[in-house]
């Protein structure tokens, strides 16, 4: 099985979704609880793969380093953001390579980003609050030519849901439910 992805099953699923679009609707959710200080615990909620429920029993923690008033008990939210972005681009790249018949040997994504906390602190400068730029390097070895890998990279980013979420404006709809607790 090339790259340990069953191309036949991938092709069958793509064709199934073309015929039955609801099978291609993935619903996700996570719950994040504040634990202490800057530390949070995230848990996946059951996922819907089309009209079928799938148990997702995973949890992880996020924290800030001590210099940012945390205890350094986990990756911080920016690292998790880059991880979610890069892992998604990786799936896209691997799926695309497999569909094109490219056997991969190694693939590594190396991400970097610089945040200027003056934005978060509200120090009144022109510093953007979020990442102004995210940069990465893709290291790949496999049985394709340089130009084929470059074209695959372009298409992988173009079809990566998380890359497209980062690149394009996305509506963030929030709600709040408050309960006042008497001291």
């Amino acid at each position, binding site marked *: 099985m090339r790259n340990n992805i069953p191309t036949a099953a*991938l*092709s069958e699923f793509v*064709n*199934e979704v073309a015929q039955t679009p609801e099978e291609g609707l993935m619903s996700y959710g996570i719950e994040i609880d504040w634990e202490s200080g800057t530390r949070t615990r995230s848990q996946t909620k059951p996922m819907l793969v089309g009209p079928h*429920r799938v*148990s*997702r*029993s995973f949890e992880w923690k996020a924290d800030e380093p001590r210099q940012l008033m945390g205890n350094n008990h986990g990756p911080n939210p920016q690292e998790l953001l880059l991880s979610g972005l890069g892992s998604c681009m990786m799936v896209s790249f691997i799926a695309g390579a497999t*569909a*094109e018949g490219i056997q991969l040997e190694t693939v590594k994504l190396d991400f970097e980003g610089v945040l200027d906390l003056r934005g978060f602190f509200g120090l009144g400068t022109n510093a953007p609050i979020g990442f102004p730029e995210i940069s990465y390097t893709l290291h790949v070895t496999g049985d394709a030519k340089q130009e084929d890998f470059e074209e695959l990279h372009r298409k992988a980013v173009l079809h990566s849901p998380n890359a497209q979420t980062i690149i394009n404006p996305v509506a963030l709809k929030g709600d709040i439910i408050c309960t006042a607790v008497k001291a």
Partner: protein
Amino acid sequence: MPDKPILGDAKSRAATRSMDGWLQDLDRKRQSGPTLGDAHAGAMGLSTCAVHAGTHDDPRTGAVGTPIYQASTFILNDDQYSAVEEGFARDRFIYSRYGNPSQWAVQEKLAALEGAESSIVFSSGMAAITATVLALVDKGAHVVASSDLYGGTYNLFNQEFPTLGMSATLVDSHDFDAIEAAIRPNTQLLYFEVITNPVLKVVDIPRLVDIARRHKLRLVVDSTFAPPPVMRPLEMGVDVVIHSASKYLNGHSDLIAGVAAGPRKLIDMIWPRLLNYGGSLDPHACFLLERGLKTLSIRMRAHEESATALATFLETHPTVDKVLYPMLPSHPDHALAKKLMKMGTGNVTFFVKGGDQAALRLLDHLRLPKQATSLGGVESLISLPFNSSQATFTARQRAAIGIHPGCVRLSVGIEDAADLIADFDQALAAISTQKDRAHA
């Protein structure tokens, strides 16, 4: 270009690919099978399917019927290597644990009988159940199943599930409110038996299908007590149907086998579990199962005929307290049975006066039925739940699922009804005389 004869399902081919497209250009679509040939008896009547579906005469010699492909491994060529690389090894012959023509033949016949796109045979019903259940659950999953499951299935949920970090809630299969109440956010699967053992409760499968759909769950049923001439659960909307093929499907009490049938998508998800857990069926057993299946329809008619006559006789006998046979009006689920079952089966459960001791004496006096567990064979088989299938239960636990003292589990074979009735008549007379003497 080397010659690549296709050793397997010729209509299954790799997706064509180009370097300038994306995933939408992949053109391989899911199809039923795998199959050895084009002839498909699936649209014909059940008896015709039982005889012809999946049975492909030997093209080399003209021998009628499926040869026994008693081989562990197959000569490989470029096409098979490519099938492995492209991820459709299930459609080629590579190694018998993955697939074998003897397996394919009987799988195609079973799929046609169940109205399924695909099926897999296993080395036992439990191998089919374990592979199917574990294919359809994920880490942390929860299953809702019936409280009077077959013991082997109960052990899967009770002994193995907690070790795997999964859980199951067992509920009365007639209590739909309790079934819905047991569903949790991490529930993935409903697992039920269409007719329960030994009290032959008929389960309302269409209502379970409705619950499963509303909660976005998969529904798997064990239809061992209702083979295709009796019920075809996939037509009612069930996702996967499982059988212990050792029972009615094979019908001759001479092999252990199982089957899971359903949409190709789900059976393809079960196939890797067959590979990982290793419950593949030997080619010779496949041949026996295929031969047994050819007479499924006429055997079921004979089971029904003799069982109906015997159940009716037992119901009128003064030494018998109660008879449970779904096709008799006295059965609590008779109306549902008439709705869901196309015909009766050979399973009759009854209660003799005098409790378990009287039941034990009855078994000793019977000459035709074999005192053995299992069911669905051509010979009548008889056993007592209290010392066999439900021996680990307390009397109170047995009573909770309707197994009261004197409960006898009978699988009526295809013997002449008159001979069976005569045998039960003499045996019941013998135990009632003994009882009278004991009380004198």
